[in-house]
């Protein structure tokens, strides 16, 4: 599977056109509800069903939930996950229900957030063994973790907190201290990926509060705050939902994944890889998707040319989530300074798409040249056996991959150093 960002644009447009046509046709032929009273309510603003066509095939699709219990290490789908020749994939740690974003401590501790449970985990290297510990619990959707200068930052649904000198207190960590909570409390796209930028600020996204909604000034954006929680500033607008970002090591520009809306069609819109070149850019949601499809509802009166186009398309409903630039030396030279992206995989598509980890090779101008899968097989016979959420490089140049379906973290390495240094 290769997606080029330039060549098939016309194809994609054609696909969009057909998609919109068939969507309209479905809406017209659907029989009106037999007894719908005049006061039948519209769908709530946050509903994932907004825009769902009334067809039998569409009614078969529903958000997929990960099993609540982490898979036992010997039940992980290692025989199904495939990597290219020269690469090697191993289990790094297991037993962390709903493992999501990862952050690396200065002393080698790997911190892992979660979304459907209330915990933050630490994978600790101790006496030649790796051990998983719960270092915080009782949190509400603590998806996001970031580490800077000894401090762990944790992003829950509507607040950001910190634990200082965390690696010195792994056995008895203090409760996190809230540094910022001026955030909406919406469930839809309320969970957060966070990261500290080269400007030493913490980047905190606020997704749109629903599938396809006209959001207010507090949503659909990325903010940055000082590490003490002060100085909040909105730096990107029109962001539907980003669950992964990093800074290009060459240009220091922020790149972020952004998930496209549901229910427009099977094949469009694509998720996006965006690039912020100046503070305050608008990336189009909910008016324009994937840079070239005006939203059938909100696009009227707008043109896609008003908005910053993506640097790459990540596939329909692919749920491109965690993204980090590869800066190590272990992988082949073609990976150097290229973004590696976890595609969690679709639910809003009859034939599921994604469920892999890919590298997006960039052109000299920083746009995506092509997308090359590196770990595949999370999707088997249209069902998930795992779902990758985040990627994170270790100091030796290997890459960790979190999997919220199995509650595990894998390590992807290349060449001779097949097994992680303990």
């Amino acid at each position, binding site marked *: 599977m290769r997606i080029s960002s330039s060549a098939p644009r016309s194809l994609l447009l054609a696909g969009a056109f057909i998609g919109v046509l068939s969507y309209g046709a479905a809406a017209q032929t659907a029989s009106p*509800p*037999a*007894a*719908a*009273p005049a006061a*039948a*309510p*519209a*769908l*709530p*603003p*946050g*509903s*994932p*069903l907004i825009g*769902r066509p009334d067809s039998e095939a*569409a*009614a078969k*699709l*529903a*958000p*997929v*939930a990960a*099993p*609540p*219990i982490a898979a036992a290490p010997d039940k992980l789908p290692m025989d199904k996950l495939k990597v290219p020749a020269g690469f090697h994939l191993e289990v790094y740690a297991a037993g962390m229900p709903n493992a999501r974003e990862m952050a690396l401590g200065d002393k080698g501790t790997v911190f892992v957030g979660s*979304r*459907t*449970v*209330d915990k933050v985990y630490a994978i600790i290297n101790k006496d030649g063994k790796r051990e998983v510990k719960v270092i915080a619990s009782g949190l*509400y959707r603590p998806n996001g973790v970031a580490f800077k200068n000894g401090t762990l930052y944790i992003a829950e649904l509507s607040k950001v907190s910190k634990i200082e000198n965390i690696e010195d207190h792994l056995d008895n960590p203090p409760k996190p201290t809230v540094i910022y909570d001026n955030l909406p409390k*919406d*469930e*839809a796209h*309320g969970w957060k990926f966070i990261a500290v930028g080269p400007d030493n600020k913490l980047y905190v996204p606020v997704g749109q*509060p*629903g599938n396809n909604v006209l959001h207010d000034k507090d949503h659909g954006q990325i903010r940055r705050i000082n590490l003490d929680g002060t100085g909040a500033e909105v730096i990107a607008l029109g962001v539907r939902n980003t669950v992964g970002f990093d800074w290009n090591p060459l240009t220091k520009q922020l790149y972020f994944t952004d998930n496209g809306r549901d229910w427009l069609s099977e094949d469009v819109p694509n998720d996006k890889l965006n690039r912020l070149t100046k503070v305050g850019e608008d990336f189009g949601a909910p008016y324009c998707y994937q840079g070239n499809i005006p939203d059938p509802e909100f696009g009227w009166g707008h043109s896609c040319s008003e908005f910053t186009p993506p640097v790459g398309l990540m596939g329909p409903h692919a749920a491109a989530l965690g993204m980090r630039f590869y800066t190590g030396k272990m992988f082949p030279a073609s990976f150097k300074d290229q973004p590696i992206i976890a595609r969690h995989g679709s639910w809003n598509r009859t034939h599921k798409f994604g469920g892999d980890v890919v590298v997006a090779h960039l052109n000299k101008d920083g746009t995506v040249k092509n997308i090359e899968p590196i770990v595949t097989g999370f999707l088997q016979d249209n069902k998930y056996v795992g779902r990758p959420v985040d990627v994170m490089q270790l100091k030796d140049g290997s890459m960790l991959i979190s999997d919220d379906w199995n509650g595990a973290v894998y390590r992807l390495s290349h060449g001779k150093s097949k097994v992680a240094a303990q």
Partner: protein
Amino acid sequence: MRRITTIIAALGLASLAGSVDAADTIEQRAVQCFACHGENGQSEMENTPSLGGQQAPYALIQLFMFREKLRTFEPMNEMTKSFTDDDLQKFSDFLSKLPKPQPPADAGDPARMQRGLALARANRCNSCHNPDFSGKENVPRLANQREDYLNKTLSEYKDNTRHGYDGTMADVMGSVTKEQIPDLAYYISHYR
């Protein structure tokens, strides 16, 4: 409060009636569940759901959430606190194989049924819960669930006092008004 007292009394009876030894068969252990949730999971107790025919992945998620106190209801938190992952799995599989609840004998008040149907359609409950409300995977069976329990649950999702495993129901209930919940619950409980 009356409900809690009833439940605690029922639990007391259940523990008198059968032991809770983990070595017991799942059928023996389920006697405790049936004390409140009714014989074969067909609840006759106020505000207490029928469990028969529930989707196993959904039941597993709920049992897990009770054990982890991600969903708060003291009798259930207490009941599941010593459950192993294997117990959670066994119970959810067991519940899914019990008979599903049957529609009540009366067909329901036509006006309320029509209002409920319109609401269910407008909010597209059928997309995830299936047109016959049988549910699928992590999405629960709703058909012929107890009306009072549906009322309670929809209200709790509405004011976010019940946190879903993910946020879907909190979003869906965003614009369903409090006044509409009774008709929706009535319709789904009488669905046939």
